[in-house]
């Protein structure tokens, strides 16, 4: 497969996953507000901080009010991570590989983008309209994966789709956990109270993990929740699961002979470290610190994938590579 094409497919999927998670972040935030006693101040800044969008935000806005944050994260073209920007980038990537992906994939992304573009011009949003919109975005992304699942041959394109999706998802799940860290409890005494657990349940819901968690553990305990979202072997949004799947796809792309493949090396290393970590250790090292370190390592995986598969290489370094191609 062409390196340029692989790159576009990978990013197309990262952007879709990103848009979905932004919708999840904001949708869940609403739920949280509705559950809070009216005396509580609405906290919108944590959304920005957890996604590292705060610096850009303050270049354009003075304070993180509800409308400003929601518009900035949904439609602002100046924000490269806004839902609008993500869908636009995903569609542009799809456009450049239309001959490789299926007609259904392209048409779906095209329609979704046109729809988001239409919504972006709308003024005077009510709370329920935002809710509907975030839900629509989430469904658009889920439908996209369904279309891939049922139309795309399990070839290299499919694996680059999965790669993009899982690397991005691992990053975002870690940020859901960070949100919990950034949302302030009214006082230190509130730890372990109803409000604390309420926030934890919201974190679970934002990752569509609430029901699955309940089935596995029943009782809401922070330690188990952290285990479930970071280390669970079977839950499709847990960080471990994402890395395991990414690693599988990398091996499917490059074959069993993986010596000298940096992408596989760094992914496998991080995955196996997680495999032998437990939730108590994560808490002991500090949840935020752990997530921060993870996000850095996950970015290194992204860089290694770029270097291994996408970067334009000069002729010399490829002469050897051309020999053992399958």
């Amino acid at each position, binding site marked *: 497969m062409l390196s340029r094409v692989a790159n576009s497919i990978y990013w197309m999927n990262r952007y879709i996953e990103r848009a979905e998670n932004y919708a999840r972040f904001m949708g869940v935030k609403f739920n949280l507000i509705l559950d809070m006693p009216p005396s509580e101040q609405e906290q919108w800044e944590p959304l920005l901080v957890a996604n590292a969008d705060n610096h850009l935000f303050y270049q354009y806005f003075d304070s993180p009010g509800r409308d400003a944050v929601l518009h900035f994260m949904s439609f602002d073209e100046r924000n490269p991570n806004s839902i609008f920007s993500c869908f636009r980038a995903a569609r542009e990537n799809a*456009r450049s590989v*239309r001959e490789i992906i299926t007609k259904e994939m392209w*048409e779906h992304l*095209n329609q979704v983008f046109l729809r988001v573009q239409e919504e972006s011009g709308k003024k005077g949003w009510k709370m329920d309209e935002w809710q509907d919109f975030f839900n629509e975005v989430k469904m658009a992304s889920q439908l996209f994966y369904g279309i891939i699942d049922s139309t795309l041959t399990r070839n290299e394109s499919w694996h680059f789709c999965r790669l993009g999706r899982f690397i991005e998802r691992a990053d975002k799940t870690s940020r859901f956990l960070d949100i919990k860290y950034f949302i302030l409890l009214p006082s230190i005494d509130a730890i372990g109270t109803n409000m604390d657990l309420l926030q934890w349940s919201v974190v679970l819901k934002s990752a569509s993990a609430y029901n699955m968690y309940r089935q596995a553990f029943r009782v809401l305990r922070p330690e188990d929740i952290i285990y479930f979202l970071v280390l669970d072997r079977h839950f499709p949004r847990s960080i471990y699961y994402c890395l395991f799947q990414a690693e599988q796809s990398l091996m499917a*792309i490059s074959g069993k002979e993986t010596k000298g493949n940096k992408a596989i090396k760094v992914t496998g290393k991080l995955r196996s470290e997680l495999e032998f970590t437990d939730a108590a250790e994560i808490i002991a090292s500090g949840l935020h610190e752990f997530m921060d370190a993870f996000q850095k390592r996950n970015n290194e995986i992204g860089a290694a994938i770029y270097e291994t598969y996408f970067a334009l*290489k000069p002729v010399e370094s490829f002469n050897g590579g051309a020999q053992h191609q399958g």
Partner: protein
Amino acid sequence: MNQASFAGYDPGGFYDEMFRADGTVRPEYAYLLAQLEQIPREDFLAKQFAAERALMSMGITFNVYSENQGVERIMPIDIIPRIINGEEWKRLEEGLIQRVTALNLFVDDLYHDQQILKDGVIPRHVVESSRGFLPRCMGLNPPQGIWCHITGSDLIRGDDGGFMVLEDNLRCPSGVSYMLENREILKKSFPEVLEKAGVQHVSDYPTRLLDMLQYLSGKAAPTVVVLTPGTYNAAYFEHSYLAQQMGVHLVESSDLIVVDGQVKMRTTSGFETVDVIYRRIDDTFLDPQAFNPDSLIGIPGIFEAYRNGKVALANAPGTGVADDKVVYAYVPRIIEYYLKQEAIIPNVHTYICEEEDSRKYVLEHVEELVVKEANEAGGYGMLIGPKATKAECEEFRKRIQANPRNYIAQPTISLSRVPTHTEAGFEGRHVDLRPYILYGEKVEVIPGGLTRVAMRKGSLVVNSSQGGGSKDTWVLY
């Protein structure tokens, strides 16, 4: 119930494709007309709306640039098809095969012995001063001796209904994706009519194109790619569509590299050899080493690989000489010279400004003529005398006198019209026709083509960049 009605339809003194001058319907349109007259107007509008909607959601768009912001537009489709009867088509088919066969011989001759120049059929300097003539192609032997693999010649009908060739496109004729998608859309708009009217199908074009491209390589399973300038090209949709339909890679220049004399593409597992390139970029952007040392685009060394027979290019570099509008004027003589036949489809009468008598006539009659620059396309660099101001005519007079080689003139022809949906009901709009001819093991004409429509009332300009739309083209059995 308010039917979609043709009651007040006025052919307006033009050759109308659906109605004869006496108002009776032509037989090839009879079935369609009967059906259209039974459809309530709202239903017709719903079909028209659905067609436009489908183009947008399928992303069948072309890019228009203003400043640095790209705008995507759909080329509007009018769902009333343009119909050509089988007998008339057969003649067109023969005429197009004849024309392309002769042009291929002509290009091959130009880059070898130049017998046609030695025999004085075309003045040598006309060829040598043509922008499309590439001296670097001298002595080149393209695979299977084919130069013009894909041709789209533009045809028009004048007042008497006879078809004429308006111009030839031997470089990278575009629009074939619209031919294919328009048919898909009409299958939804008028499924019963399509079935009952007996329309020849065009849907195997990608298969035929791939067969032709593979034929150019000596290998059993050659690697074929489509080469595009990229997503910002106006015709990008078509490039990607054709690659997708053929199931081949769509590559950009930066994906290709010449290694040890072979053209390779950069893949996730190293370099892979490329055998055949259907290129949709201009000759001179192919290879900076061969054509344009200052250019940053292109694949250094690809021309050398081509010359050495390591890769096939479709169309061959150098065919653009036949797109020159002065060379066009000589095509009937070219056909006669190589095939000893009279041209089956005539040219539009053309005044070659370089010839003294013609120039004199043109200078005296600019106001009545269409004047064209030799190397322009897309409706640019041209003067439509009857619609031009006095100053514009004067300007062209000066230009012709300064550089007669660069101009031709033709009488203003009122293109034929087809009923088209407008806000005011059905009205006649002027059309042309671009059929597609493939030259592989044999020369084949696809039974259909792209009918372009000047959507603006009274306009004769069908180019998509200037408000043109399109219609599906039905060729009957």
